[in-house]
């Protein structure tokens, strides 16, 4: 019997070609150079496939691949077209969107104005959906032909486009069969949903008919949920996965020292904000709050505890967002703090500093450092590190003086932050903040006109900066680590891990 007549070299070439063809799949994909698989390791477990039913950062990351919103927001906070090609305010309470044509859902059904009407009315009307409360101001959603939609609102809703960056569009066929639909959902996004093993992984496959040419760059994306940072980092270092989020400062050196691993960081859209309980006798007096602020050496926290992975605060709202302006850093002046306390007649002040256990990097060490700093000016700090649900109950009950918390501006707009924390209705079960002037400015700042908003927000910020109802110790920094095989990965300021424009070598 004659031997097979190809040598090892030919065999390898042939096998490689066959393998390559199997990996890239249909000819279209090869033409667009789409190949390979990216595996991401996210810190937070995803709980739902319903884009209207979460405010989770990991779910936003995963579901952005499956569903498209009307608008996207870039890493430098520009709102850009996704399923809406244009959007403009008709007046203060009316927005008009024109929609992209020729887009279809993964099941082949077309994307039209009906999808937008359905998605918006669903989130407004179904009170069980987590995002429902944000959309309560919507009065009506009307289609104007198949590719235009008019949204009227009960009061000005200037931040509507920003919120819509987080709301994936659903096909109207969801109605009536929601449970079945979300078992295997379809969207218009760059990837099709394949499978989800709860608590373990989500698998997505490229949508070859995606409306954006050349996107996505890979055939497959797998997102694994690995809550432990040490394990996440180990999986990346072992080459099992290609990107991890939520790296803590003290893990950076280890990761940087690993061949094939790169660490990326960017100032996050998150300001740490420790709020005062303004109804409490202890911190009701603005002089006391000012003294506490003066006694905290923010640079020590940033440099020594966060190893430089944080930025000094110059405004309650982080740079990049509408309304931001540079108000200068808060000074560190313990001597002046002592004087202010004396003036306020507070010689034996003791405050409760409540933490939500294990929520923020290094929070306990930071709180202990703050306790020592305040001790220097004669304030005794009682740190209460409570389980999250308990801490939030304590806050509602008003049992704290200072509460350790942060605010990530997920929709890239500060309206939510102001409306929640500095209006009477928002703050009554939280910080008990009440200032009619600020409240009025917030209402005036809800209009769509960007110039008006900028001006109103700057005014609000000046009042807050002076009054100090919160301590703003630092802006957080988002740290990611990736395999050096990834190309075009962007370290997002909103903590999202987005992979549709990322390729792998």
């Amino acid at each position, binding site marked *: 019997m004659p031997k097979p007549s190809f040598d090892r070299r030919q065999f390898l070439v042939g096998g490689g070609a066959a393998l390559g063809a199997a990996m890239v799949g249909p000819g279209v994909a090869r033409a667009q150079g789409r190949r390979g698989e990216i595996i991401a390791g996210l810190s937070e477990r995803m709980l739902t496939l319903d884009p209207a039913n979460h405010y989770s950062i990991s779910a936003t990351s995963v579901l952005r691949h499956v569903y498209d919103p009307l608008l996207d927001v870039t890493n430098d906070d520009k709102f850009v077209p996704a399923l809406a090609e244009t959007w403009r305010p008709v007046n203060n309470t009316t927005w008009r969107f024109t929609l992209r044509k020729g887009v279809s859902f993964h099941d082949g059904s077309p994307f039209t104005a009906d999808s937008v009407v359905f998605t918006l009315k669903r989130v407004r009307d179904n009170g*069980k959906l*987590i995002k429902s409360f944000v959309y309560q101001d919507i009065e009506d959603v009307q289609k104007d032909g198949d590719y235009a939609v008019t949204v009227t609102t009960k009061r000005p809703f200037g931040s509507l486009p920003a919120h819509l960056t987080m709301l994936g569009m659903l096909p109207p066929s969801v109605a009536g069969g929601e449970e079945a639909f979300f078992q295997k959902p379809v969207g218009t996004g760059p990837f099709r949903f394949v499978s989800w093993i709860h608590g373990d992984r989500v698998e997505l496959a490229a949508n070859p008919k995606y409306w954006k040419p050349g996107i996505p760059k890979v055939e497959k994306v797998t997102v694994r949920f690995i809550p432990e940072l040490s394990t996440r980092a180990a999986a990346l270092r072992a080459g099992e996965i290609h990107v991890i989020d939520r790296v803590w400062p003290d893990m950076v050196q280890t990761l940087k020292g690993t061949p094939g691993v790169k660490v990326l960081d960017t100032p996050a859209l998150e300001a740490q904000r420790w709020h005062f309980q303004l109804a409490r006798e202890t911190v009701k007096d603005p002089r006391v709050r000012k003294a506490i602020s003066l006694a905290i050496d923010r640079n020590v926290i940033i440099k020594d505890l966060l190893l430089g992975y944080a930025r000094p605060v110059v405004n309650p709202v982080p740079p990049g967002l509408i309304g931001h302006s540079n108000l200068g850093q808060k000074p560190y002046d313990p001597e002046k703090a002592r004087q202010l306390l004396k003036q306020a007649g507070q010689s034996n002040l003791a405050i409760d500093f409540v933490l939500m256990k294990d929520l923020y990097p290094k929070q306990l060490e930071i709180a202990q450092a703050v306790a020592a700093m305040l001790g220097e000016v004669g304030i005794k700090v009682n740190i209460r590190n409570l389980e999250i649900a308990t801490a939030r109950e304590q806050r509602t009950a008003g049992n704290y003086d200072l509460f350790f918390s942060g605010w990530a501006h997920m929709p890239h707009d500060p309206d939510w932050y102001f409306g929640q924390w500095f209006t009477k209705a928002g703050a009554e079960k939280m910080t008990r903040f009440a200032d009619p002037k600020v409240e009025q400015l917030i209402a005036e700042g809800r209009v769509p006109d960007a110039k008006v908003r900028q001006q109103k927000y700057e005014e609000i910020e000046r009042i807050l900066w002076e009054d100090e109802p919160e301590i703003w110790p630092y802006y957080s920094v988002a740290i990611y680590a990736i395999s050096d095989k990834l190309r075009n990965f962007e370290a997002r300021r909103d903590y999202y891990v987005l992979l549709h424009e990322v390729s792998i070598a």
Partner: protein
Amino acid sequence: MRSFLLRRLGQSATTLVGVSLLVFVILRVIPGDPAKMLLPEGAPQSAIDALNRELGLREPMWVQYGIFLRSVTRGDFGQSFQYRAPALRVVVERVPATIQLALAAMLLTVVFGVSIGVLAAVRRGTGYDYAGTVLAVLGQSLPNFWLGIMLILLFGVTLRWLPTSGFQGWRYLVLPSVTLAAFPTALVARLTRSSLLEILGQEYIRTGRAKGLGERSVILRHALRNAAIPLLTVIGLQIGTLLGGAVITESIFAWPGMGKLVVDAIFFRDFPVVQTVLILSATIFVVINLVIDLLYTVLDPRIRYG
């Protein structure tokens, strides 16, 4: 025997109703508000109140418990607040991963625990005995999270023999089950050693040796069998614990089992999931205890239930 079984089944049912009531009440009296945990920090109080109403949490507690009991008898454990899916389905999805890990860890425990214990007892005072003691002390004193991370760094990152984490096949099972088995293996090894030593001093062992039985037969057929009763009790309890989920090991290895599920559910006040898991694990415990009690009669013919 039959009356014993009936009595035990009756006791078990009472235990389970008691557990359900206890879990139900405790969840509702501890501080923490499910809607507040589901909604983001920036949700107004009106939204929190509305969602709590939607979730049925504004009814009086006894009404809620009545509804719960009625649905449970129909096999409906309610909707998970977090997953918005039937709680039973959410929990049952985690059962295969939980059972795999528990069985693998149990297998390691029995094989290594008993072997080390027997070796240490038979070669008492030798290097084997000391090595066994050192291993047992380490196994009982090394915290799971430390051991798990060290195993990941050694076998996953440095040597790259095994995957660091995840749930896709037997290779993924090795490190978590070794981590999980460390403590019970040490426990079983020490227990085996001490009970075997006690039994080896008994007269019937001397009789066995005197009538010319081989050492192997004396140890394995006579001594070990008699040492098995306390072992069985401990192993039974360990199986129950492992099936209830191994929180730390599951967290470290990103293992999608019930332990991590229930801890997250407790943190987020997902009452239906917590209730389902606890009632299921209580059931497992009760059943295993019953089986172990019955196994005693097989191992030791002197034990009789009437």
